[in-house]
């Protein structure tokens, strides 16, 4: 995200932006804005230019402009993207269509309502439930680099919601926990310090949707942080299947959803 504009550009690019103000409009519309084109501008720079110089009424979320806060996810030409990491040069000279993320209720313009995800995070217990309690005075839990590596990838989720916008199952059925929530559950399931895998499994498999996930893998494709939620979902499924066999064949045995 460029803080300052370099040498003036004689090139421009057109953005077609989804507009919806619930108090004023019944139906969403698209508005066209022509903005200067710079090689190192991202879509978010163009939106900020619109906001500051052309049309103060356009609303969207953004903050860190460096791909880590997760605020600025939108559909760019139909693909879910962090707009702070989507460069104009990858689209120019074609028109760029900017819309709110798919499958979420629109609050206004490019702002979606993501409360559903927040509730799901709580539901899957996306926090560490220690296997053994110990006081802080006894120091850290030991965790080797190999143990850390097991879950590290799934801990990189920035909650940007791009994966939900790419997920055909979530598109059909919003009760599906969805890629990020399951990846976060798996992040803790795989953590050597955690002991709540079973509780989380009960939540994950009581929800509709997970069996419909056919490993299309679009969630993983669009993830800006390489979290691989599709992999997390498949891991969870495999362990649940193992768990089912174990409960049928060895009903007296302890469930072990941790093995993957």
């Amino acid at each position: 995200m460029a803080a300052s504009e370099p040498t003036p550009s004689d090139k421009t690019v057109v953005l077609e932006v989804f507009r919806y103000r619930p108090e004023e409009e019944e139906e969403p519309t698209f508005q066209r804005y022509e903005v200067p084109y710079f090689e190192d501008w991202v879509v978010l720079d163009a939106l900020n230019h619109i906001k500051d110089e052309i049309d103060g009424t356009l609303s969207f979320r953004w903050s860190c402009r460096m791909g880590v806060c997760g605020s600025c996810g939108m559909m760019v030409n139909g693909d879910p993207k962090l707009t702070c990491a989507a460069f104009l040069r990858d689209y120019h000279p074609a028109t760029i269509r900017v819309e709110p993320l798919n499958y979420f209720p629109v609050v206004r313009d490019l702002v979606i309502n993501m409360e559903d995800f927040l509730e799901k995070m709580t539901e899957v217990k996306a926090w560490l439930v220690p296997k053994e309690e110990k006081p802080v005075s006894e120091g850290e839990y030991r965790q080797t680099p190999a143990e850390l590596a097991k879950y590290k990838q799934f801990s990189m989720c920035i909650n940007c919601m791009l994966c939900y916008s790419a997920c055909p199952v979530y598109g059909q059925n919003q009760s599906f926990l969805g890629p990020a929530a399951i990846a976060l559950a798996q992040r803790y399931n795989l953590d050597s310090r955690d002991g709540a895998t079973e509780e989380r499994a009960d939540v994950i498999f009581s929800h509709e949707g997970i069996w419909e996930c056919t490993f299309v893998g679009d969630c993983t494709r669009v993830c800006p942080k390489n979290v691989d939620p599709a992999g997390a979902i498949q891991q969870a499924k495999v362990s649940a299947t193992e768990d089912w066999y174990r409960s049928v064949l060895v009903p007296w045995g302890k469930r072990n959803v941790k093995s993957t």
Partner: protein
Amino acid sequence: MDLLQHDILIVGGGGAGLRAAIAIGEENHDLSVGVISKVYPMRSHTVSAEGGAAAVIKPTDSLDNHCYDTISGADWMADQDAVELFVNEAPAELTQLEHWGCPWSREPDGSVAVRPFGGMKIERTWFAADKTGFHMLHTLFQTALKYNNVTRYDEWFATKLLVHDGVCQGVVALELRTGQVRAIAGKGTILCTGGAGRIFSFTTNAAIKTGDGMSLAYRAGVPLKDMEFVQYHPTGLPGTGILITEASRGEGGILVNKDGHRYLQDYELGDPLDVSDPDHPRKRTMELGPRDRLSQAFVQERQKGRTIEGEYGDYVHLDVRHMGEKKINKKIPFVRELCRNYAGIDPVHELIPVRPVVHYVMGGVHTNTDGETPLPGLFAAGECACVSINGANRLGSNSLTELLVFGARAARAAVRFASESPGIAVEEITAQAAQEQQRIRQQFFQPGNGSESIAGIRGELTKTMEAGAGIYRNANSLQETCSTIRELKERFDKVELADHSLTFNTELTAALELEYMLNVAEALAHSALARRESRGSHQRTDYPERDDEQFLKHSLAYQAEGDPRIEYLDVVITRWPPGERIYGSK
């Protein structure tokens, strides 16, 4: 207007705010906590912190070492009682975060790993690769989810403190989704709103860092302390200001000028060791000097014509190539990602262009070591507060630890205060909130107000801050900045909003933020003008020496009619008498 009520209110859902919320949950889960945040908590700027968090852990280190590094790094402006307490509580706080699941990087035996950072005698920076702030924030947010006594007000924007009978009793806040303005009462209110880097044009800080809590307190008569001390981080990407973490130097990266010369050796930062030397990087030396000194060295190097000219201003090079691809991927993967995305270079093979960039405000809401402000019922913690442990220059990796230690302390103090509270003056504060709603309506929704634009005023503000109150300042530059701010404040009254919608009106929040920024900028520039000495990050070309006789004192800026009133408070010195800051000695 209905009143929403909690025992404790927290304004800000970043690291300090969430640590405070959890501390209250731990203390007494019957207490109701409200966390008001203008963004979803995991969007808070703590998320962008990269390098790490300091706490003594190695048997070869000591609490006194951490104290000395912090105090000398602060150019003796830190309160030594606060520093000692901070250093003592730091290891337990970081261990606590480990118990909550923070994925700290590890040694082969499973213990927590540490890395060296600038201005430190010995490595004591805990890290989670180079996304430490991200992992800390998400760990705190996810941990906070399990406390049922915490009610979140996500995307609620605080516009005013409610003060009755000399006691802070909550805030007025605007719910972005609906546009409703509500009074939210608390027997104790903790400001955890972060810094104000956005008042400068070139900053590492996220868009949300507009000094909201500082300004809320200032307007309620609470002084802002040591605002003249602004940290420039020596290594930001030109153009965007995106931070390239100090960890890149902690892991061995070097700074070179246009001739490939490691210029820091010319600025009393010691002698360079070859990058292949097993002792490189040497602590408190060269690239591991403190941030203020490194940023000042850049400016002098530029004056000598030894920096490189670029489209976005002059820069030097950070070279990490000798670390090799494997180590870069393991220790500073985010640096590689950021360089590839935003500078179009791969640091494995290429030099990283860097220049100093506004990173952190050492000053903030005046508090004691329990986070108490002079206004009863109001507390503050994190970057928006000034305890002070950071003095004239914060040491890298102390701020993440600070928000844990003081977030928790402020929470405990607020709980004590609330337990003795006589209750909320419901009628009075509801009336105040109604008035505030009126003010917002009149100021921003009356058509025909004027022709000023938010972006216009904001652009001029950030420009005058950079020009007049940057790395080197003097009376002339600061006076000019002060008078520009005065004009901009007048012009602000003529801002006309195009958006009169109630639903997620980001033009309105941008206007409210600009108003906050003007307050903070005013306090900062006037405090800088009044400090006629050079110390740490505050360098006056007209007063180049440190003057302990007159200025071993914290400044306190009070809002007043016209210009702010500046008062002073002695720095607390206990075991470390003021001395010379020496870097680069054996």
